[in-house]
C-alpha cells in the first residue's frame, strides 16, 4: 500500500425528500486494498457507492481521484475514470452469450461484422488471470447465479477498471463460491486494483478485507484496519448502543441450542410428492415431500429461483399443486382457495414484498390488515370496523418501529425497509398454526432482524410451525431444526441440526446429492 490514496470522498451529503440518506460522509480508498463497507440496511453504503458510480448526484461534497477533483454525472463517466460496479441485481441479457454481454456497450473495432474472436481471446485471458472460470460462449440463461456474477465482474475487468465496487456480492453464492470469489479478489488486488466490498455480513469483511469502514444511519462510525480491530467493536459500530447484545439473537454464539432443539409431536404441515407444472408442462417443482411439526422451524436453503417461491405458493394455494398432496393437521388442503387457508391459520411473508405483499396506493392501515380483512375484529357482518383497524395499525406501527406519518399515510410514502416491516408485522399480528416466511429479514436493519428472530423463536415456543425459506444461510443455520436444500425445483436433501455444515449445504445448493 502506498500513502497516496487512489480515491477520497469528502463531506458527501445526499437526501431523498426529507430523508437524509448520507450526512457528511468521508471515505478513503487506498491503492491495492480491499476496503469493506459495512453496515445494516439503510446505513447508506449502497447510496454512497451509487454516487461514486454516477447513478446519484451528491447534494454536496467532493470526489477526488488520483489527487484531482472529478465530477461524475453518469456511469459512463465512472467507467471512463476506470471505476466499475457490480450491483446486487445483475444487468444481463439472458438470451445473449457471456461474450456478447461482456462487450455490450463498448465500442468493438469491427462493429458491423461483429467479429468477436479477438474479444473472446481477451475475455478468456482475463478469466484465466483472475480465476474467474467462465465459458465465453455459454448463454447467460443456462448459468447459475454464481457464474453470472463472475460475468458481471468480467464486464468490469474488460472495461479496464482500477476501482471495482461490489454490492453485497455474496448474496446468491454458495459458501464454496464465496471462497472462490475471495481468491479472485485477492489476485485483482495483487495486480494493482482497489476494491470496495459492500456488505452487512461481518464475518465476510473480517475474512477478506484489509480495511473496514462502518456506516450507520448515513454517518461514518469508524474506519479500522482488520488486524487492529475486534468483532465486538464492529458489532457495536453497526448497531449502536440501542441493542442489548446479551439478549440478541443475531449475535448469539451458540447459546440458542436449547431453545432451538425442542420440537413438538404433532405434524402441522405435510407435503407428499408435490409437483407443480407451468403452462408448457415443464415442472417447476417436483417430488417435494417433507413434514413440519409443531414448534419446528424448517428451513429451505438454495440459490434464488430454484423453486422456493413456487413451493411457498403451492402451500398457500396461490398456484395449486398439479399433483401430490398438501395436508394441514391431516386435512387435505391441496386445492383449497387461499382465503380459506389464511382463515384456517396460515400466515405468509412473500419473497417479493413490494410486488406480492404491499399496496402502494392504499393506506398503511389498509396494508396492515390485508389477508385478515375478513376476520374479526376488523370485519363484522360485512362491514369494516374502522376503529379496530386503526388501533391495530397504531399498535403494529409502534411495535415494529414502522416509520410513517400514521395509519392513514399512503403506502407509497414508505421506504423499502419499512415496507418489509409492514409485511412482516402483518404476518405476526395474528396467532397462526403455520408461518411461511420467505426471506423475512431482507432489507431490515439489525435491531429489526433481531426482533423478527426473537418473534420466530417465541412463536416456536408457542407450538407454531414455521417454514423458513431463505437465501441467507447464516439465518437458517442459526434458527432451523432441519434444513432442506432445493436445486432446480427438487429437494436435494434434508439435514438435521446435528449435521448442519455450511460447506455440505453449499455442495447441495449446487446440485450435488449426498447419501446423508
Amino acid at each position, binding site marked *: 500500500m502506498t500513502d497516496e490514496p487512489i480515491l477520497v470522498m469528502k463531506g458527501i451529503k445526499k437526501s431523498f*425528500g426529507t430523508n437524509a440518506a448520507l450526512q457528511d460522509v468521508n471515505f478513503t480508498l487506498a491503492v491495492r486494498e480491499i476496503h469493506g463497507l459495512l453496515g445494516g440496511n439503510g446505513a447508506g453504503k449502497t447510496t454512497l457507492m451509487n454516487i461514486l458510480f454516477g447513478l446519484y448526484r451528491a447534494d454536496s461534497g467532493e470526489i477526488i481521484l488520483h489527487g484531482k477533483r472529478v465530477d461524475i454525472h453518469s456511469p459512463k463517466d465512472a467507467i471512463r475514470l476506470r471505476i466499475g460496479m457490480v450491483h446486487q441485481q445483475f444487468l444481463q441479457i439472458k438470451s445473449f452469450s457471456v461474450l456478447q454481454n461482456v462487450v455490450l456497450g463498448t465500442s468493438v473495432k469491427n462493429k458491423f461484422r461483429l467479429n468477436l474472436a479477438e474479444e473472446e481471446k481477451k475475455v478468456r485471458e482475463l478469466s484465466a488471470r483472475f480465476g474467474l472460470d467462465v465459458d465465453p460462449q455459454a448463454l447467460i440463461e443456462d448459468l447459475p447465479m454464481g457464474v453470472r456474477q463472475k460475468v458481471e465482474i468480467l464486464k468490469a475487468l474488460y472495461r479496464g477498471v482500477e476501482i471495482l465496487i461490489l454490492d453485497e456480492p455474496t448474496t446468491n453464492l454458495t459458501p464454496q463460491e464465496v471462497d472462490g470469489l475471495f481468491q479472485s479478489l485477492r489476485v485483482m488486488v495483487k495486480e494493482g486494483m482497489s476494491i470496495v466490498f459492500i456488505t452487512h455480513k461481518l464475518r465476510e469483511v473480517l475474512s477478506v478485507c484489509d480495511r473496514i469502514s462502518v456506516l450507520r444511519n448515513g454517518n461514518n462510525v469508524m474506519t479500522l484496519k482488520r488486524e487492529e480491530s475486534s468483532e465486538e467493536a464492529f458489532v457495536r459500530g453497526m448497531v449502536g448502543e440501542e441493542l442489548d447484545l446479551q439478549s440478541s439473537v443475531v449475535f448469539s454464539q451458540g447459546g440458542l441450542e436449547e431453545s432451538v432443539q425442542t420440537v413438538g409431536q404433532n405434524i402441522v404441515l405435510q407435503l407428499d410428492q408435490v409437483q407443480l407444472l407451468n403452462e408448457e408442462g415443464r415442472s417447476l417443482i417436483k417430488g417435494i415431500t417433507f413434514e413440519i411439526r409443531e414448534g419446528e422451524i424448517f428451513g429451505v436453503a438454495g440459490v434464488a429461483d430454484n423453486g422456493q417461491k413456487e413451493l411457498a*405458493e403451492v402451500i*398457500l394455494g*396461490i398456484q395449486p399443486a398439479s399433483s401430490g398432496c398438501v395436508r394441514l393437521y391431516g386435512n387435505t388442503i391441496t386445492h383449497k*382457495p*387461499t*382465503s*380459506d*387457508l*389464511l*382463515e384456517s391459520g396460515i400466515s*405468509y411473508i*412473500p419473497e417479493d414484498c413490494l*410486488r*406480492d*405483499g*404491499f*399496496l*402502494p*396506493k*392504499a393506506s398503511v392501515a*389498509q396494508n396492515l390488515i*390485508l*389477508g385478515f*380483512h*375478513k376476520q374479526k375484529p376488523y*370485519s363484522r357482518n*360485512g*362491514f*369494516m370496523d*374502522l376503529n379496530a383497524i386503526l388501533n391495530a395499525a*397504531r399498535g403494529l*406501527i*409502534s411495535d415494529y418501529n414502522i416509520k410513517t*406519518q*400514521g395509519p392513514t399515510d399512503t*403506502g407509497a410514502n414508505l421506504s423499502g425497509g419499512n415496507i418489509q416491516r409492514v409485511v412482516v408485522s402483518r404476518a405476526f399480528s395474528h396467532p397462526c398454526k403455520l408461518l411461511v416466511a420467505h426471506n423475512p429479514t431482507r432489507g431490515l436493519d439489525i435491531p429489526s432482524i433481531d426482533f423478527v428472530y426473537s418473534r420466530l423463536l417465541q412463536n416456536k415456543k408457542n407450538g407454531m410451525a414455521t417454514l423458513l425459506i431463505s437465501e441467507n444461510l447464516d439465518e437458517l443455520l442459526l434458527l432451523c431444526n432441519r434444513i432442506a436444500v432445493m436445486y432446480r425445483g427438487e429437494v436435494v436433501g434434508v439435514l438435521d441440526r446435528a449435521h448442519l455444515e455450511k460447506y455440505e449445504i453449499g455442495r447441495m445448493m449446487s446440485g450435488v446429492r449426498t447419501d446423508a
Partner: protein
Amino acid sequence: MFVQTREKVNNRSILFRKILGKVLPYLVAVLAAFAAVGLVIGLMGFNVLKAYETILFTSFRTPNGIVQTLLKFVPLMLQALAFTIPLSTGKFNIGGEGQMIVGGIGAAAVGILFADLPGYILLPLVFLAGILAGAIWGLIPAWLLYKFNINEILSTVLLNFVSFQLIDFIASEVWKDPVAGHPTTVPIGEGGWLPLLVDNPPLHSGIILALLVAVGIYIYTNRTTSGYEMVVTGANPRASKVFGIDVRKMFMLSLVIAGALAGLAGVIEVSGYQHRLIKDFQSNFLVLGLIIGLIAKGNNLAVPFVAFFIAILEVGASAMQRTMSIPVEMAYIVEALILLFVLLSDRVKIRRR
C-alpha cells in the same frame, strides 16, 4: 406513546394542509382554464367578463337555472361513478353510454307494457327493470373478461354501438310514436313517472336518489369488507391475489355495479324527465362522466362535487350561447383544459420531489 401525542397535536394542522394541498391544484387549474378561454373569447370580440358571469352564475340566478343544473347533475354524477368504480379496481368502463341507453330501454319497455298498473307497483318495476338491464349490459363485458380475459375497454366501447342500434329499433319500430319526427316511443304509463319534488319549475325526485347512491357508494367502498377488497384489488392485484382475494370476481363485480349505476341514469331520464324513450337521450353524458371521473382522480367522494361544478358550466354555457351567441363548445374547452391542468399539476408535484 410519543407518536400518538404528536399525532393529536398536529392532527388539525395536518388535516388543514392535506385539504389545502388537494384543493389548491384544482383552483389553479380552474383559474388557468378560465384565463385561457377568456383570452380566446376576447380575441373573438366578445365581452369576456359578461361571458364569465353568464357561465358561472346562470345556475344560481333563477329557480329555473337551479333546476336545470340539478337535472344535469344527476346523470353526470351517475355516469362519473360508473367510470370511477371499475377504475378503483384498475378496470376501465367506457360503456356507460350503452349501459344508460339499455337502462332507459328497460325502463321504457316495462313502463309501456304495463302502463295501466298503479304507481306503487309500476314505479318500482320501471326502476328495477332499468337498473337490471344496465347491470346486464355491464355483466357482458365483465363475463368476457372473467372467462376469456377479453379487454374490457374494447368490449364496453363496442357494446355502446350495439345499444345505438337497439334504441333505434325500439324507438322507430317497436313502440314508435307516429306523431314524433325524431325516433321516439309512445309515453310510459303515468304510474311509472318519478314524483316531482318541486312543481314549478318541475324538478323530479331523481336528485334524492342520486345523492343516496353517492352516499351508498362511499359507504360501500370505505366501510364494507367487499368494498375493501375492491379498493385493494385496484391498489395491487397481484398482492391481493396472494392474500386470498378473488380479484377477477372483483373486476366483474365492479363492472356490474357500474352498469347498474349507468342504467339508473337512463331510468331517471325516462321516468323522471322525458316520460318516453327518445333516441340520443343519452346526450354526451358518457364523455363528461369520464372527464369528471378523471378530474376527481377516481375519488368517489370527490365525484359529486366535480359533477356539480361541471353541471354549472354546462348550464352556463348554453345560456351563454343563447344570450351572447358564443358557441357552447367553449364550455367543452374549459372542461378539457381543467382536466389537462389538473393532470399537469400532478406532474409538477412529482417533479418537486
